[in-house]
């Protein structure tokens, strides 16, 4: 049911862990829904994501989407990272089964929520692209705007 890419990122997840001096941390999902993703960002003075780590509780797809999302934004600018979509995450993994699409949505939202935290910590206004709902991923209408 999973692509080789998904299995690879599940069995060898990239960037697992925490960043002690992170300046942006985001967490989405909840244990009741069966998945939680937490992303740590280290962003330098030029707005470049120099380091990123994640911790995820969830199924194989949740772990794989977290892993690939961290790879996709590492070394990128904050504004580039904000353009990450769940669709791009799915494509990078060579596809996800339909019931697992919500995991890619969580990965996109985890990145956005960490970036929103970065702006908040700096006392700056959170850009609209970084605002997400923070509930159970598929419990609100906003998710219907994402790719299936």
């Amino acid at each position, binding site marked *: 049911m999973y692509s080789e890419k998904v299995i690879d990122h599940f*069995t060898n*997840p990239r960037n*697992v862990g925490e960043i002690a001096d992170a300046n942006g941390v985001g967490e989405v999902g909840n244990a009741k829904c069966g998945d*939680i993703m937490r992303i740590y960002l280290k962003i330098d003075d030029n707005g470049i994501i120099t380091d990123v780590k994640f911790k995820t509780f969830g199924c194989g797809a949740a*772990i794989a989407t977290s892993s690939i999302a961290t790879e996709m934004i590492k070394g990128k600018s904050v504004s580039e990272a904000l353009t990450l979509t769940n669709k791009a995450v799915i494509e990078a993994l060579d596809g996800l089964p339909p019931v697992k699409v919500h995991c890619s949505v969580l990965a996109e939202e985890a990145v956005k929520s960490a970036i929103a935290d970065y702006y908040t910590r700096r006392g700056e206004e959170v850009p609209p692209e970084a605002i997400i709902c923070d509930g159970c991923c598929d419990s609100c209408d906003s998710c219907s705007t994402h790719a299936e």
Partner: protein
Amino acid sequence: MKRFVYADNAATTKVLPEVRDVMMPFFDEVYGNPSSAYSKGTEAASPLMQARETIASLLGAKTTEIFFTASGSEADNWAIKGAAQANAKKGRHIISSKFEHHAVLHALESLERDGFEVTYVDVNKNGVIDPADVEKAIRPDTTLIAIMMANNEIGTIQPIKEIAAIGKAHGVTVFTDAVQAVGNMPVNVKELGVDMLSLSGHKIHAPKGIGVLYIRTGTRCRTLIDGGGQERGRRGGTENVAFAVALAKALEIATARLSDMARVKAMRDRLMNTLLDKIPYAHVNGDTDRRLAGNLNMTFECVEGESLLMWLDASGICASTGSACNSASLEPSHVLLSIGVPVEHAHGSLRFSLSHENTEEDVDHIIQTLPVIVQRLRDMSPLYNSTMARVKE
């Protein structure tokens, strides 16, 4: 070669060589239609009859009370819909439980859409139904009680004998889904006193796609599959002689091996105790005594079941989970929720179901593999530290 451990025998079992061998002639040698009058037909009719006799005698039933079906699900549907419809003039109320198999629950839902009413009695936190709750639920219009004999996810054994006595006292038909029980514990319909009982071939080392419904003589139950008069006019469809013969053989072997169930139980207990010992924040779901010998259902906090299964699969181990992430519906196991397991714990559940085919080496392999997997997933789980700190307080 990588070790392979099949520990999901509650999902299905492999066909035993002895079972395969008895059924092979029925594909291209004894292939006649048992209803045909010529000798090619009668040569198939008599093994079918023998299979029915064997199954009847092993279950304590009469030959005329054994009906072959195409699955356990069909037997469940037939019993429930057939008895409900046959008694509809008398009443339209049914009693069942919250943790039945979906073949039962969805058959009941279908009846509810047709105006029947169902009371789902509670299951206690150990996964056992109190017969007193069943009796309390009986109304003047109750016609059927449908309670499983052993649960498929947590293996807990229900007091069917007591429930059957209650049904009898109140003139209510009692059906039990014994798909998980048969072959794993003694099952005798006369001793149990039930009116109907279902079983399925593929849970006891016979092929997938054959089941049996026992219908006690005198029980009102309408036909589900109308057809050409097979099964004494009560279940249409040319008989699957090969699978019927296989099922009889498998039941014979399973019954003979019941005396060896203590070995399966000892393996299960060693697996359970070692995992509890090695893995902190682990729980067993469901009663540990009133339970099928091969069943173990555990929760490992802070990790999710599907990711456990994927890692186990990578290590050659087959098991199953009640996590929502493993189901198309994205709902966690209704069985675990029915016994009060928190949703978070249901997501982290894992079921091992051992059979006679498993060995101590299989258990060793699981014991060596699983603690490492749980730790690896916990190390990347955002729940792990905060939860552990909370527990330590």
